[in-house]
């Protein structure tokens, strides 16, 4: 017995087991709570029904295609977020007056619920994928810009001095020292931006009932398919977790490989 617990302590599996275990316990509790009427069954579907609804999502609702729609929008938005966010961060770093003038705004913008802007985007771009991509882009931009700026301006002075002592040009100083030194921080920003963009993309899909997973949730809920709705929500959560874990891996790989 003690041998078993010792080997469990050592294994990296233990935290995972505890996490999954408490999740299962929660679902069991939910199942009983709904079945015995503690929670209104028209508000929450029992977990067993949600699980049963999953095959239906694939067979009838083409959740795979919906996922690809959302993924497509997310990838385009992320590329734009990274491109423009990093460029904006570099610009703010280089142009001092611009930084002093706008840094607070950008920070405020990062905290603002940009999803509320969707009617405006609807008017500008119409009810289509462009609106969704732009909404994702807008949501992800600020954290990337801020983190890029932070990474560049917290580069250790002595590293810059090393570059200067080797007579580097401004261009070399940026690409050989400032940027690589800021890269881990920039990557944190890109991850945040990606998550923000994804949240907004699914949210706007839901709101304007167009495109991928968000629209699917909207349709299912309007059909009062409670189990299906929750199954779709679970699917979105799973996707987010996967994205989060993948970027975490990528970050670790990037920072360790230099």
């Amino acid at each position, binding site marked *: 017995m003690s041998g078993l617990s010792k080997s469990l302590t050592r294994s990296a599996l233990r935290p995972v087991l505890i996490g999954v275990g408490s999740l299962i316990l929660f679902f069991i509790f939910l199942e009983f709570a709904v079945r015995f009427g503690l929670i209104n069954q028209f508000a929450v579907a029992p977990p067993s029904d949600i699980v049963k609804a999953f095959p239906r999502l694939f067979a009838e609702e083409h959740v795979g295609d919906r996922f690809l729609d959302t993924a497509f929008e997310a990838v385009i938005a992320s590329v734009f977020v990274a491109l423009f966010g990093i460029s904006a961060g570099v610009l703010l770093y280089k142009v001092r007056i611009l930084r002093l003038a706008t840094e607070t705004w950008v920070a405020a913008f990062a905290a603002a619920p940009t999803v509320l802007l969707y009617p405006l985007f609807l008017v500008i771009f119409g009810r289509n994928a462009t609106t969704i991509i732009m909404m994702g882009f807008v949501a992800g931009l600020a954290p990337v810009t801020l983190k890029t700026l932070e990474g560049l301006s917290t580069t*250790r002075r*002595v*590293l810059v*001095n*090393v570059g*200067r*002592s*080797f*007579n*580097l040009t401004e261009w*070399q100083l940026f690409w*050989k*020292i400032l940027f*690589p*030194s800021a*890269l881990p921080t920039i990557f944190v920003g890109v991850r945040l931006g990606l998550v923000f963009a994804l949240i907004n993309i699914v949210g706007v899909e839901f709101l304007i009932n167009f495109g991928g997973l968000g629209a699917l949730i909207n349709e299912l809920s309007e059909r009062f398919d409670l189990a299906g709705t929750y199954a779709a929500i679970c699917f979105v959560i799973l996707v987010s977790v996967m994205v989060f874990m993948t970027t975490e891996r990528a970050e670790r790989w990037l920072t*360790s490989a*230099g």
Partner: protein
Amino acid sequence: MSIAPARDPVVPAEAAQPPLLVVDDIVMRFETPEGSVTAVEHVSFDVKQGEFLAVIGPSGCGKSTLFNIIGGLLDGYQGRVAVGGKRIIGPHRSIGMVFQEESTFPWRTVIDNVAFPLEVAGMTKAERIERARHFVRLVGLDGFERRYPAELSGGMRQRVSMARTLASEPKIMLMDEPFGALDEQTRLLLGDKVIQIQQELNQTTLLITHNITEAVQLADRVLVMTYRPGRVKRFVAIDLPRPRNSEIVGSDTFGHYVAQIWSDLREEASRGMIADESRSRGRGRAE
């Protein structure tokens, strides 16, 4: 007491040779909210090709400021820095710097750190790796080429910085307390390494330090600076035989030099402490 004037040659045969580095009447003031601080005041000295000069002084006496001025990283000073008879302004390729703080690039391996100046100079990959390997070996880090700085000890990282600066093959090495953060034993052993390399390359070297043992162990000549404002207090020629190694630290002559420099420094250090104390008292009263 051997008070060497600035032009006293270490090797008489080289007396005719013009100095490689001339530091002429440097004055540096910093404007701070509390007024102007004079960090360096009228400092002048010459360094000959192949000479090892140690600059020693109490903390805050302007050593790093002087180092940054010679290296061209600071401007707004009065006076003149010349290499080989020509005035230099800004960073210059004939001067290589090793900094007081940890300064390896954490995103580059040891070999890529050392190859950095060669890469910037546009050398091909194969060529620069080959050159860098030589300098990695010189500082005794062979076998660690593929490691990242985070995987090395503090002393090893300082050796990487040193190899990186050596790889750019500067005429003059400036080192600002490169071993300041290390323990005494490591410092002595790295000192041996520095001497060995300096002798091997006949490298003109300026070592800034506040460690008397280190100064006497390594240098041909020691410049003792006064407490703020940093002025030249004295030059001490170290007439110890070469090749030297850290074993010399136990000898009588060595002790004599240390005692001599310490008596100079003690004066300055206590002056500094009194100045600091009265300043903080003054501030305490004001608040």
